[in-house]
């Protein structure tokens, strides 16, 4: 093996791994960004230092969000003051709330339970305590 060959082989392997990473994450991202057409819209508003929610039927909630199992929900995330980041770690829901913008995230819970909601972008004094909870309930209507 020549002097440079080893290095070229190494670089080629690295590039192959990176191509794999790139292609794989491209495919997954494409898949998870595809919002189901029948997703119900929930408006999420972040402000210092709590979350408020507005359901499609006009019901408003503060800090605690109730959703039904087996439905898809699309969050329209806004902020009233500084940047926040809407995050439900257990459901991999994460998108910044940027004042002046509306960002989107979606999920379709398939498990009943109570899950923490938190802010993941530094937003001042009580950032650490900008927490809420998500309650996934059984869908009784069906």
């Amino acid at each position, binding site marked *: *093996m020549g*002097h440079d060959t*080893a290095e070229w*082989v190494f670089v080629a*392997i690295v590039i*192959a*791994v990176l191509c*794999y*990473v790139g292609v*794989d*994450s491209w*495919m*997954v991202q494409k*898949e*998870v960004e*595809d919002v*189901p057409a029948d997703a119900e819209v929930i408006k999420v508003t972040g402000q210092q230092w709590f979350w408020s929610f507005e359901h499609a039927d006009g019901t408003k909630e503060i800090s605690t969000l109730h959703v039904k199992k087996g439905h*898809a929900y699309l969050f329209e995330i806004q902020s009233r003051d500084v940047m926040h980041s809407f995050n439900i770690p*257990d*459901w*991999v*829901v994460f998108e910044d709330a940027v004042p002046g913008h509306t960002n989107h995230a*979606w*999920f*379709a819970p*398939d498990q009943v339970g109570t899950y923490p909601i938190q802010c993941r972008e530094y937003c001042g004094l009580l950032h650490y305590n900008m927490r809420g909870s998500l309650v996934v309930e059984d869908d009784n209507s069906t």
Partner: protein
Amino acid sequence: MKTLIIAISIITLVAIAIIPQIHFASAQLAQTQSAKQYINLRAEVWNEFFRMTTAAFTVGAIVSGTMIWLVWRFRESNPKNKAPTKWEHLEDPTAGSYEEEGH
């Protein structure tokens, strides 16, 4: 030795590249079977995460394994390393070069 390491790493990498595609094919098949089924977002993302960590730890095992072996084999206290290397006959061993560089 070196060829073996490289061969094993290429095989492993090809393997970890192919396995997730099988997963995807089966996931896609499962999708078409029931229309009302939403994709499981968190499963998709976490599966991606575990595939990526598998790749990272595989490469990591190769690199850090090589490194530990290098440190063990080429430490000066290793009995195999008693004799000075050919570069140490130079006044400054680091001033030499493998490369024929034009001045």
